[in-house]
């Protein structure tokens, strides 16, 4: 409406200028919805973590009792141990494989576009459906293969072996997570100027040397981003575990998310809210580490 004047006031009085009503209408509804959908549930959860609520009915404050109990609960400790081990293993597998695939896909190869198309497909499929397909393969096809090859460990289903079920989870999670990581690495590798390699060629550096001494340091920023994004995602793992092992055999592959969410049916509402609060604090710490590590790195 009075647009030229808005510009003038901005110049004259930059501090307390008049904000056009439309801008409030653009922002405030989102802020209200956001507060109702995320902030308030978050605060409600933290509040109840100091009570003995079971989700419905009466409750009273019990201070830090839930938190104290958490640290000596073997089920909770096991879920943290499993989730962190699983997340770290998956991050390493995903990044190593993605990086090598990205190097391959950016080199002089044939069928570049069809290959890229294929490698990205897993990204668009639902995690739980992937898990069910692999569950079938692990239960019905792999044991037969193991038997035929005479590998004893593989002749029974990996999923019913408490020591191996996590390996199956790493494989399936990696299968789905590689495309996203791969695309970031491809972007990183394409940003490396070609003349760097020409110079290295002239100096007589071999291809593996170039990869290790030139490529890797130049895309290190992308490695850090991928590692931390991946770690955050895998720590929250739920869908694939739910489909593939449902936390089993026993409770050997129960993730933190599954433990927390189980609290609603198990009558452990307040207790699992304390668990969720701890998990939230851990996520914040990891995110802050991310900001520290990536600050100043230009991508």
């Amino acid at each position, binding site marked *: 409406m009075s647009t030229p004047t808005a510009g003038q006031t901005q110049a004259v009085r930059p501090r307390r200028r008049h*904000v056009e009503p439309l801008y409030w209408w653009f922002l405030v509804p989102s802020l209200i919805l*956001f507060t109702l959908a995320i902030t308030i549930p978050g605060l409600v959860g933290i509040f109840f973590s100091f009570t003995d609520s079971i989700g419905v009915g009466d409750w009273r404050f019990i201070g830090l009792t839930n938190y104290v109990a958490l640290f000596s609960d073997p089920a909770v400790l096991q879920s943290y141990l499993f989730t962190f081990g699983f997340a770290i293993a998956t991050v390493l597998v995903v990044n190593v494989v993605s990086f090598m695939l990205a190097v391959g896909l950016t080199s002089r190869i044939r069928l570049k576009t069809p290959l890229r198309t294929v490698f990205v497909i897993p990204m668009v499929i639902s995690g739980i*459906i992937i898990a069910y*397909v692999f569950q079938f393969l692990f239960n019905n096809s792999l044991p037969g293969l193991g038997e035929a090859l005479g590998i004893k460990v593989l002749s029974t289903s990996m999923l019913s072996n408490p020591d191996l079920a996590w390996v199956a989870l790493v494989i399936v999670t990696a299968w789905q997570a590689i495309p996203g990581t791969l695309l970031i690495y491809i972007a990183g590798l394409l940003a490396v100027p070609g003349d760097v390699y020409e110079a290295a060629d002239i100096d007589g550096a071999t291809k593996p040397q170039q990869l290790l001494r030139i490529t890797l340091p130049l895309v290190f920023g992308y490695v850090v981003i991928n590692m931390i994004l991946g770690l955050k995602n895998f720590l929250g793992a739920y869908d694939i575990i*739910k489909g593939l092992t449902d936390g089993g055999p026993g409770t050997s592959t129960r993730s933190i998310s599954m433990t927390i969410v189980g609290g609603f049916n198990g009558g452990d509402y307040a207790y699992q809210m304390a668990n969720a609060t701890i998990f939230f604090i851990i996520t914040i710490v990891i995110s802050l580490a991310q900001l520290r590590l990536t600050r100043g790195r230009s991508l």
Partner: protein
Amino acid sequence: MAATTPTPAAPAARQKIRITPERVNWSATIILILCAFTVLLPLYVTISMAFKSGTQAVDGNAFSLPNPISIEGFVEAWNLTNFPVGAGVSALVTAGTVAGTIFLAAFASYAIVRNWDHKFFRYSFFYLLAAMFIPFPVVALPQIQLTGLVGLANPGGVILLATMFQLSFSVLLFTAFLRSIPYELEESARIDGASTWQTFWKLIFPLLAPMSATVGIFAFLYAWNDFMMPSLIIADAQLQTLPVRQNIFQTQFSNNYHVSFASYLMAMSPAIIAYLFTQRWVMEGVTQGAVKG
């Protein structure tokens, strides 16, 4: 190794005509093709199992071709899981989340960027961004409780929550993009007498299109494929999305592998087909989003 032998001949012939096209790396090509099979194999198994007849599927042989090709699995899965309703709910949740995320995030980002000198707008930006650090499980239990209380334990509630979770990342992408649009462009529109609403709608929003595509793709992949949130929020199993339906009927599928795989295939194919038609945008969008975010 054997495959490398024919290569020198081809580039050598071309070499005479033009500047050396660098040699095709055949060993890398072959290794990558082999790797691609690990991606294609589960998809092949899904498709071939889905088209088997009940009598053939029951042996659980994953790699045999369907013989005869049968669609009885699809018919049974369609009726058992009530596929049309599931697909409808999934489509509704996805469309609602994509539209909600694009519009709300674009509106909010525009207001924030144009009023950056105003404290309220600046702090709102950081407030919205904070949700990027909140994993869904952390707020899931209170959200189940609260959506139940206000009558949102249905696909509508999922649209609202999914949109709000997508908002942080999307606002981050939009604000970064908006800052790169020169203000002079907008000023000239305003001098011509356009209101803020007109400026946004006719000038800014079309300019945002590439970023809207990125934001939309992320929202689509999340809303269409997510299992955890709808499974916890939607109370009525009849109104569940496709991924959750697979979980509900998993025990009923039991050894009718042709039914279960037909059901999986129907649930995953819309996203795969959409991807095959838009793959360039998807790849560019995801790269852009991930690198900026």
